[in-house]
């Protein structure tokens, strides 16, 4: 008998005959059904550029305002109240155990993407020391990824989540390429992975650097939009 990792309620597991006959270890659930279904998955009706859930499949207003390179982003869940609560507890309160909640849905989403190299958005040194983990790589189970980006050492900023839209858009380039990035990226299709797509500023900065590293194409996947 174990408890749900998020809400702490006792998990009701029912053993089926099929499970007994299979003679293989039974996968222990860590999350209850209610918690797993708390998030709203994004359906096929979304903005083709940023992945935002909407009523039709046209490019949304926010995306039309972006000039320059076009970035195609897909997102798994809607950034609603439940997702906000989850992010608050996982990322800001620092409950690393909650990463398990998102591992399965993210693995399924990665299956649907076509890419050669997976590059998660990095965290800076101070965050690594205080938070103790990168919230994005925590969601990866065994998928190989390359840390091709680093955060500029001089980049001392308020976190993106503490800013308004206009301030976010003015953020200077925070990333540099890792020393071995050119060999990793040359001629490859790169998939960027981040937690939340809000204005798209961070992902576009990252995509710019990845293109500088010689990548053939850059797309991105975020957990929430």
């Amino acid at each position, binding site marked *: 008998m174990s408890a749900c990792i998020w809400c702490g309620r006792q998990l009701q597991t029912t053993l089926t005959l099929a499970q007994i006959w299979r003679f293989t270890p039974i996968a222990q659930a860590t999350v209850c059904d209610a918690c797993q279904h708390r998030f709203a998955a994004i359906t096929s009706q979304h903005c083709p550029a940023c992945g935002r859930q909407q009523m039709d499949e046209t490019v949304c207003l926010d995306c039309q305002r972006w000039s320059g390179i076009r970035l195609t982003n897909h997102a798994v869940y809607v950034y609603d109240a439940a997702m906000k609560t989850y992010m608050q507890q996982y990322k800001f*309160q*620092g*409950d*690393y155990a909650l990463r398990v909640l998102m591992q399965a849905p993210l693995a399924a989403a990665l299956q649907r993407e076509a890419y050669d190299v997976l590059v998660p958005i990095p965290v800076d040194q101070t965050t690594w020391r205080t938070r*103790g*983990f990168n919230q994005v790589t*925590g969601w990866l189970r065994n998928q190989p990824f390359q840390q091709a980006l680093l955060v500029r050492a001089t980049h001392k900023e308020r976190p993106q989540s503490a800013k308004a839209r206009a301030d976010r858009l003015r953020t200077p380039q925070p990333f540099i390429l890792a020393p071995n990035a050119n060999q990793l990226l040359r001629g490859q299709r790169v998939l960027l992975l981040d937690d939340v797509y809000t204005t798209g500023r961070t992902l576009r900065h990252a995509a710019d650097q990845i293109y500088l590293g010689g990548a053939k194409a850059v797309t991105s996947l975020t957990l929430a939009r």
Partner: protein
Amino acid sequence: MQNDEDFFGRQLPLRGAPTNGAVGQRALRTVGDRRQCQRCGQWLAVTDRLANGDWYCRQCLQLGRLTSQHELYTIPEPNRFARVKSGGLTWTGQLSAQQNVAAQAVLRHVKTRTDHLLWAVTGAGKTEIVYPALAWALAQGWRVAWTSPRVDVCLELAPRLRQAFGGVAQALLYGGQADPYAYCPLTICTTHQLLRFKAAFDLIVVDEVDAFPLATSPMLQRAIANAQKPKGCHLLLTATPGNDLQQQVRRRQLAVTYVPLRYHGHLLPQIDLRLAWRWREGLLRNRLPSTLIHQLRGYLTKHQRFLLFVPHVVDLPVISQALQLAGIQGGVTVHAADPERPAKVQAMRDETIPFLITTTILERGVTFPNIAVVILGGDDPVFSTAALVQIAGRVGRSADFPSGQVTCYCHSHTKRVRLARGMIAHLNLQGRRQGGRP
């Protein structure tokens, strides 16, 4: 950087040593190959580890994460506050004769620093009974905490204590509050907040000691023991002590004072038990027991307001619909996660609605004058003996309407209901000896 006062009797998690002479200890202590959190006393699981190799405690995460990088800093409690000679008691009310007897007993035990249980029936005026002892303790320059596992009890209590003890600085602490911490002789807080203290209080008053989650949480029980000075004592207040407390009383390990009578001198209403065989099957066809319908119709025609307790949140809409079909209309449902809960309870208080259908959340801490109580499915395990006695205690709390009906509909006889009736009968027996009127 940090104020000395912030460290008095507390355990503050910091990454580096503060400039004042506070003593630190590792927040996570390694014992063998296991790790124990020094704030909440719980053991870490092998999976409670961050990507950078640090350990962290998941049990007390709500109070801010503790990792193996943290140390807990404390300065031993010096009781450094201005002493108030009279204890700061500005309360002008009068204790009844039997409340006074209990108050003197409590004072005697506090003076000798012995742990003590005040077993007072619902509506006996527990808070006021403690005032003389509290005033004495504050006059001695003691640091006192008044704590409860339920935040609504704390929120209701704080303004009352502020009025009753006008001359004493008070701090109110609970999760998610905006005010910063203040060093005060009297602290009102939830039991969770006691985890931030270490050997701080000379006296801890634990209100509603049997309430969820304190009764089943070793972490919170340890928090109380830890926040108390080694020479301090605690005073437990409840109307329905659990089995373990009753056993301690029987074994004479815990001193006890009974207050078997309410402040207006009337006995507790006994639970009237009625069988409603297979009422759940009837509910599937949208039908409630005819005896229940008849009783509730009677209440509506007499304009008698009532509370209908049901076992689960999922039962609320079903039963509400069945009542509507039977022509009993005008009530609203309320449960723990209901965002409009305070508004609905207030509407009931203002007498704008005739009845509330509710789960066990209204079992304690609410007072409606002239109310009747009906419990449907009292044999369900969610209604513990204590819960049933507390629910029955909602009736007849005001001196103008000291009696009322408590009816419990059950599918079958259970031990919990029998014990609840037994507890009320036992208290009423003692009450009658002290001259209680039915």
